[in-house]
């Protein structure tokens, strides 16, 4: 007994001593993080990560060659722990799974029969593969073979189907695919993804300024996955309720179905799912990447600012919105009348965005309440300017400032703010042909104006306002005065407006914009009897703050008083300033501002995350091969075979008699059944393939 204890004591002691001395004598410095990271890997030495064992993988993480989620077996927890050790941007820790972006499958057409090595790589190296579509799936299943987790199979339509339960997002399939139809992206990467000229994109998606994946959400609607559809839209557009109401949907112009009959009512479908969420009584959760600790100031709480703040927040940055007005919303709050976009709806939507953890400072104006100095002092690293365009252009004619004369935006926001304006029984004229002009006239009608004119210097065909809006205005009894250029406002001695004098025009040669330039007819002066005049001929940003802020002296502007920026990366000449929305582009669509906000968010994200590495170079790389505001020529068809005509769902709206009395919402949401019918009209287009409808399947 004693012997045993003694022997073991000696043995243990000797071994312990030898080891501890040896560890001192033979000490070699090794990054302590290697051991720590290895501790968190699964320890199975499975090789799934592509490194020779867990220890090698740990070294790769330390050297920055692998990301914290290198271990494909380990769960999110271990990845988070590793990221913590590395002190890395934890944004990349989010779990990712593989997505198939090609919808070709069986409907794709082939240009030849292929004999030979049955792998996608081999097939694609001969003339890009047998498909007519140069970018689509080849369908020989290289991805299936590459997957170590049995998560991919070639589905019935001969395109890969991914089992999201088994996929670990290792990316082996992405590497195997010669056509890049698979993508493994984290949420952050997906949020920052931009349409690409090599993309598998339907014409509608190419057109949408916010780059929403339209076919995807429509097919989700068909499947009844409304939440999925909402999430799909939210990856690109946080303001889906608003856009569903006010977006002029340029996407529908390019809808292939429109070649045969009417385009799919894409925006209605968006509105349908957006309203579905709102009416469902709960908010679908929105996930955000872990906090990065970087602070960004967003100046302006309009669509661009909200969009930018939303994406930055989802990328994990801390965002503060500074809004000059008492509430957020900007132009869509103050410039779009209640009957088009009820304030209740907008507030609900903005609340959802702010709830992600965005700090809001209202009644705070740049140049008045804050300046760059104070922002930098509060640790803001980048500034987004989304201040909109709030200065109405003046007509520049006599009598413009008489009593009863308004500026468009000013008028609309006054109405929105509930200021008392006497409109009842007034005769009003609105100068301009854009959407704000129409908004003004329709507001006037609802506020009880007796007669409402719209005075526009070209013809109806050239009116930039949305067609539906014009039609609605016509229905509501607006009188249109075309080819009229106001020359003078005539007032009485009280300084009140009595008449508007204008010249009649005729159309001349087309100008640079392709519209025929109006030429005044000499001596055709006519007067119109009015007592209220609203000029809505366009706006420019209010950039008065530049002069008030010494730090902003250098900020370049354009001759339209917009802030000059790189049109692709939206960085101003001061590297920490990014702009988007109307203040950068001049008055434009809401959805343009939203898309701009997202692009700015990407740039800011890169600016913040790259800044440490390359202090000297603040230039951000533009998105490679971006399809910004372009179309892929081969995807634009002129004829379409195999499509059976089906009528478009008509949008329900309030009857004219009712709607002109109140500011209630005019356009109503379509029913679920109608939404499904409409969604079913979608041809589920990809770049060049689409679902052919045969009469047989209809029967």
């Amino acid at each position, binding site marked *: 007994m004693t012997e045993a204890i003694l022997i073991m004591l000696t043995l*243990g002691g000797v*071994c*312990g001593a030898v*080891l*501890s001395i040896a*560890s001192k004598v033979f000490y070699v410095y090794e990054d302590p993080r290697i051991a720590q990271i290895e501790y968190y890997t699964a*320890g*199975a030495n499975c090789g799934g990560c592509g490194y020779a064992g867990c220890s090698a993988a740990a070294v790769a993480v330390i050297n920055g060659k692998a990301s914290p989620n290198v271990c494909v077996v380990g769960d999110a*927890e271990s990845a988070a722990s590793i990221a913590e050790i590395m002190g890395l941007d934890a944004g990349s820790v989010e779990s990712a799974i593989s997505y198939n972006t090609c919808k070709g499958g069986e409907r794709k057409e082939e240009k030849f029969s292929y004999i030979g090595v049955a792998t996608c790589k081999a097939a694609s190296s001969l003339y890009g593969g047998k498909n007519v579509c140069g970018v689509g799936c080849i369908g020989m299943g290289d991805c299936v073979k590459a997957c170590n987790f*049995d998560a991919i199979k070639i589905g019935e339509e001969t395109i890969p189907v991914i089992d999201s339960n088994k996929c670990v997002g290792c990316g082996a399939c992405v590497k195997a695919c010669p056509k890049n139809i698979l993508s493994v992206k984290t949420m952050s990467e997906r949020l920052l993804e931009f349409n690409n000229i090599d993309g598998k994109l339907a014409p509608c998606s190419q057109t949408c300024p916010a780059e929403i994946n339209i076919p995807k959400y429509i097919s989700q609607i068909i499947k009844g996955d409304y939440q999925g559809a909402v999430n799909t839209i939210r990856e690109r557009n946080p303001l889906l309720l608003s856009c569903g109401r006010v977006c002029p949907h340029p996407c529908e112009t390019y809808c292939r179905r429109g070649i045969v009959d009417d385009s799919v009512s894409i925006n209605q479908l968006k509105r349908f799912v957006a309203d579905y969420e709102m009416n469902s009584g709960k908010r679908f959760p929105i996930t955000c990447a872990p906090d990065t600790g970087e602070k960004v100031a967003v100046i302006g709480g309009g669509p661009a600012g909200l969009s930018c703040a939303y994406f930055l927040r989802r990328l994990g940055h801390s965002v503060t919105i500074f809004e000059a007005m008492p509430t957020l919303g900007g132009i869509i709050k103050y410039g779009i009348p209640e009957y088009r976009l009820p304030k209740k709806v907008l507030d609900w939507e903005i609340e959802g965005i702010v709830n992600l953890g965005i700090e809001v400072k209202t009644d705070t104006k740049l140049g008045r309440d804050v300046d760059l100095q104070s922002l930098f002092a509060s640790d803001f690293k980048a500034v987004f300017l989304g201040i909109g365009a709030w200065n109405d252009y003046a007509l520049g004619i006599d009598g413009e400032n008489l009593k009863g004369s308004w500026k468009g935006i000013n008028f609309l926001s006054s109405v929105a703010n509930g200021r008392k304006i006497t409109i009842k029984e007034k005769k009003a004229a609105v100068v301009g042909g854009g959407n704000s002009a129409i908004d003004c006239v329709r507001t006037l009608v609802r506020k009880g104006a007796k007669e409402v004119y719209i005075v526009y210097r070209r013809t109806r065909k050239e009116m930039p306002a949305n067609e539906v809006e014009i039609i609605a205005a016509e229905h509501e009894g607006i009188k249109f005065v075309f080819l009229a250029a106001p020359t003078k406002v005539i007032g009485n001695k009280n300084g009140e407006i009595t008449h508007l004098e204008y010249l009649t025009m005729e159309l001349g040669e087309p100008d640079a914009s392709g519209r025929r330039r109006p030429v005044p007819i000499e001596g055709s002066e006519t007067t119109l009897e009015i007592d209220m005049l609203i000029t809505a001929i366009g706006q420019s940003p209010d950039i008065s703050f530049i002069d008030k802020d010494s730090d902003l002296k250098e900020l370049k502007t354009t001759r339209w008083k917009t802030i000059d920026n790189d049109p692709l990366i939206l960085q101003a000449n001061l590297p920490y300033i990014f702009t988007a929305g109307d203040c950068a582009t001049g008055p434009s669509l809401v959805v343009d501002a939203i898309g701009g906000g997202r692009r700015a968010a990407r740039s800011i994200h890169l600016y913040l995350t790259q800044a440490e590495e390359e202090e000297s170079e603040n230039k951000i790389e533009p998105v490679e091969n971006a399809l910004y505001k372009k179309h892929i020529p081969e995807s634009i068809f002129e004829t379409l075979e195999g499509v059976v005509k089906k009528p478009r769902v008509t949008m329900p709206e309030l009857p004219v008699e009712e709607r002109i009395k109140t500011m209630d919402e005019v356009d109503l949401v379509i029913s679920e059944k109608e939404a499904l019918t409409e969604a079913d009209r979608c041809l589920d287009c990809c770049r060049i393939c689409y679902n052919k409808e045969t009469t047989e399947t209809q029967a």
Partner: protein
Amino acid sequence: MAKSIAYEFGKGLWKEIPPFRLVLGLCPVLAVTTSLQNGVGMGLATTFVLVCSNILVSMLRKVIPSKVRIACFIIIIATFVTVVELLMQAYAYTLYLQLGIFIPLIVVNCLVLGRAEAFAYKNPIIHSLSDGLGMGIGFTLSLGALGAVREIIGSGELLGYSVFGSSFKPFTFLIEAPGAFVCLGLMLAIMNLASKK
């Protein structure tokens, strides 16, 4: 964070059943599974060591410095292995003879050390206990299954009783060393096939 105790126990029985899923501790698996009895005996011995060492490691995990943790684990495991060895000599001598050198070699069974390192050192006692128990039982089941297959086909008997009658000519290949490898390999494949569905 911590998963349920039932989960820790259950995973050893199917999801991570050693040595089929966690390919650890192969040597005894191959060597002693010439019969069901040997397989189960070895499995139980391993289970005992696994559970005890898991508990002790988990208890002492705050005390053991991480640099000498492997040495400490080994001492703990070796102690329990010797306990098993002595007990087996005293009360199950025939089995001890059959298992031979593989009893002391439990100490280097990667399964035991692996669980201590990968689980017990990071988890509380109860979890470690259920993990050890689950893994141990899973290991025993695997060994038993392999032993049964080899015994039935390789010698036509199970637990000493003739299965197919005397006219059966046993496929003795399975009892021999190469047979052990092949049999385990094929069983592994069947497990893979089964778990795919």
